[in-house]
């Protein structure tokens, strides 16, 4: 790529890339069939970070309606309240489970709520009590979470989603907080950072999930000073020019957010060489289609585009003033977070 294009973040190109995701995806994206809600989140939150939400003003209502069409409603004695990833197994237009295999997924619930808030919805159609009830079912004895009552794996990712959801519905009734915090603490590896679970390798993604969960659940003070110091050291050590996710692994754009946000929450975002981070990210930028990729030799995708941008927004001092800063624990813009807070304040009065 010519040097000229490497020098600046192509805001409008990235906005076009993200908007296109909302409009249509190629057949090769079939593997994302049951995760479309998360794709919508990457796009909408990405446009928000780019200050380009106005580009989808005309779609705002229909996106909100589409997200709600993935909400599974249920009775108080059922535990299936929450969001699906898409309509692929929605077999009729009812808002109830449409077949015995129609289950919500915790990541989709988190990203659906986030997207709704970013678009200005007031969440009045959401039944927080039923969300909490469904979530309780997903927490295991060791404190970790599964994604869905159907079963499946359990790890730090879903624990984070649960913690984030408690912020959106302003209630921790859905989590046994003590158990959750214990799972997180038990996942601290000898390296000083967090794996997906006990004994598992410390990793940038699970470290973010762990620290954000602790932050959201009020558990950060469970880490003594010297453990915070080791954790910070591990995180800053992951910068090569961009960030890697584990020692001796290649750099990858998405860790800009996972590690940038972790260091932000711990108060050490100013110990990152942000110009170097941006330099690396720009090598992954596609000047024709827009979008950011994992690394410079790969095609851009929604996840890396969003996490590269939201990560960059956290730079201290600010590198790209055109970007909206995100809240590191919830991964939505501070503006969207303010809207969320106003919703909660209104509910209280």
């Amino acid at each position, binding site marked *: 790529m010519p040097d000229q294009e490497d020098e600046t973040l192509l805001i409008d190109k990235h906005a076009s890339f993200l908007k296109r*995701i*909302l*409009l*249509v*995806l190629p*057949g090769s994206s*079939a*593997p*994302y*069939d*049951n*995760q*479309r809600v998360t*794709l*919508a989140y990457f796009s909408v939150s990405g446009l928000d970070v780019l200050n380009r939400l106005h580009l989808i003003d005309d*779609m705002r209502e229909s*996106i909100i309606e*589409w*997200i709600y*069409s993935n909400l599974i409603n249920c009775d108080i004695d059922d535990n299936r309240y929450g969001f699906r990833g898409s*309509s*692929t*197994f*929605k*077999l*009729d*237009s009812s808002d109830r489970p449409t*077949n*015995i*295999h129609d*289950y919500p*997924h915790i990541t989709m619930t988190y990203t659906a709520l986030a997207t709704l808030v970013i678009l200005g919805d007031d969440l009045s159609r959401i039944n927080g009590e039923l969300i909490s009830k469904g979530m309780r079912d997903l927490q295991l004895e060791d404190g970790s979470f599964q*994604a*869905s009552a*159907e*079963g*499946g*794996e359990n790890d730090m990712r879903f624990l984070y989603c649960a913690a984030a959801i408690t912020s959106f519905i302003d209630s921790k009734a859905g989590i046994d907080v003590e158990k959750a915090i214990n799972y997180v603490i038990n996942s601290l*590896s*000898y*390296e000083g950072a967090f794996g*997906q*679970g006990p004994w*598992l*390798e410390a*990793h940038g993604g699970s470290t973010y999930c762990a620290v954000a969960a602790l932050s959201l659940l009020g558990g950060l003070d469970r880490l003594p000073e010297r453990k915070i110091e080791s954790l910070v*050291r591990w995180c*800053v*050590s992951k*910068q*090569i*020019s961009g960030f890697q996710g*584990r*020692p*001796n692994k290649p750099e990858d754009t998405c860790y800009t957010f996972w590690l940038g946000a972790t260091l932000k929450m711990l108060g*050490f975002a100013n*110990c*990152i*060489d942000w110009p*170097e981070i941006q330099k690396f990210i720009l090598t992954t930028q596609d000047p024709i289609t827009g979008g950011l990729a994992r690394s410079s030799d790969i095609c851009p995708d929604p996840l890396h585009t969003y996490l590269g941008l939201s990560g960059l927004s956290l730079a201290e001092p600010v590198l790209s003033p055109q970007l909206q800063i995100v809240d590191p624990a919830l991964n939505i813009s501070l503006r969207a977070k303010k809207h969320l807070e106003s919703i909660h304040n209104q509910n209280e009065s």
Partner: protein
Amino acid sequence: MNNADIEEALESVGLLAAVYRDVEPTFHDDGPNPVCPINYPRRYRVLMGLLRTLVAKSEKSRRVYDLTTKLLLENPAHYTIWHYRQDLLSVLDKDLNDELCWTESLSEDNLKNYQLWHHRMVLTRRLMEKPESERGEWTMQGELDAVERLLQLDEKNYHAWSYRIGLIKEFNQYDLEAEPSFIQRMLDADIRNNSVWNYCFFFYMREARREKWKEEVDRAKDAIQKVINNESPWAYLRGVLRKMNSDLRSVEDFVISLSSNEYAEASAQWWRAKLEIAELKGQADQAVAAADRLCKVDQIRLQYWQKKMIAIEAK
């Protein structure tokens, strides 16, 4: 879409159209304004349409099983289809060894797919529930060998390593004779593979292996001597020493002796060790000097080391 299209789609994946003739496909209703709509290939649309109808009836038959086989090839991330298939395996009493074979053939192109690894764990759990005589050719060692085969394709694959740890833990396989040589093989292949070091820690740092801990200190030292700036063995060394209620001071002689290593002066890891030892010994001047050196040798972390220097001087 007409019957000819449906037949063509089925035949294209090697399924007999006649078997599905009575099934009216339920096509995807994405609502009036779908967001992030995927332009599904026709084949996928047809197969999903048929599956939806059969899932709605909760049919648990061979023809549904075959549909899931084809669909998971197109979309191995479809967790609902995996769950349905796991039910089908029980209902149809399918041979689990065959299923493992098939799963492995899918894995090679999808090594970072959570559902495939979870499916493997589901199968292992079912096999371990059976008496040994009913497991066919399956053995735990065979399963671990399969993980090693997959690791050859992607030596640091997080799922593979986590799965291996999960197997050893859940089924209490710590005393497997072949593990120590497996670990050695992986380290010999790449001494910078952090996942192996983590696995090593998991395997050896249990109370029952306490007598091995001193050897593990030596393992870390050997690795450091080979590649002084390798973050992995330094972290391992610190971890093992902490388990022994000790710290880097107990290997101070070793750290000092590394000064003869040609890469030591430029090694951020070496200087960190010297900084840490100085701090532990309460030697502020030496600690500040080491931090100052790190500002030059580990420049990308300049602000971090500067902050560190200030913190030491403040104490």
